[in-house]
């Protein structure tokens, strides 16, 4: 009963890791739930409009509408810096 959260770009520096597995006791998690589990500093950074969220490889139009289940992969995507 876990979800995987992937930190891209400078978010990996803040997290100190590329990805974490989070225990999901209730089997589901929403955006506020995720913010509560990733630490206050990371929560503040990913709250910014420029940070996007992908659920299982698809970018959500509105990350606040997130509903993730055990086994899902969430990626937190700061602004890209291109080629």
């Amino acid at each position: 009963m876990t979800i995987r959260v992937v930190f891209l770009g400078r978010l990996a520096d803040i997290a100190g890791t590329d990805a974490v597995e989070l225990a999901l006791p209730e089997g589901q998690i929403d955006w506020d739930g995720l913010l509560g589990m990733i630490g206050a500093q990371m929560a503040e950074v990913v709250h910014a409009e420029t940070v996007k969220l992908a659920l299982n490889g698809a970018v959500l139009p509105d990350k606040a509408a997130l509903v993730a289940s055990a086994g899902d992969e969430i990626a937190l995507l700061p602004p890209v810096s291109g080629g």
Partner: protein
Amino acid sequence: MPQMRDIRLLGEPFLPGALIGQFTQANPGLGGVCTFVGEVRGGIGVEALELSHYEPLTLPGMNALADRAFARFDLMGLLMVHRIGMMVPGEPIVCVSAAAAHRRDAIDAVDFCMDHLKSAAWFWKREKRRDGWHWIEPRTEDHADRARWGN
């Protein structure tokens, strides 16, 4: 005529000349080939550059960009190769090559793909300078370049 498409992420250094030679051979009857090769700039204090990506988005995103280029321009072939990982100054980062019957389609397709790769593709870049690593965000010009295409 079948369209030739070659979209790749490469973890190791590549020689643009070898790619372009093969690509040109694979598009007989073409009128022109336009190619852009971007390299890690030297002489500006950058010691190394690291490009990271997110596998589930990056390659599908490049293929979607290729779809749009084929829909928008009259192309015979499109090559889009992007490095990931660690690079040093002088190393190629990106190579986009478009083959077409007419030069305008070839040049505009390369311009279009580069503008979108720069500001809309799923890559994160950091540079190592004397004082350590720095994450790079897109320049204002990059957004303006992309806006030229109406999205």
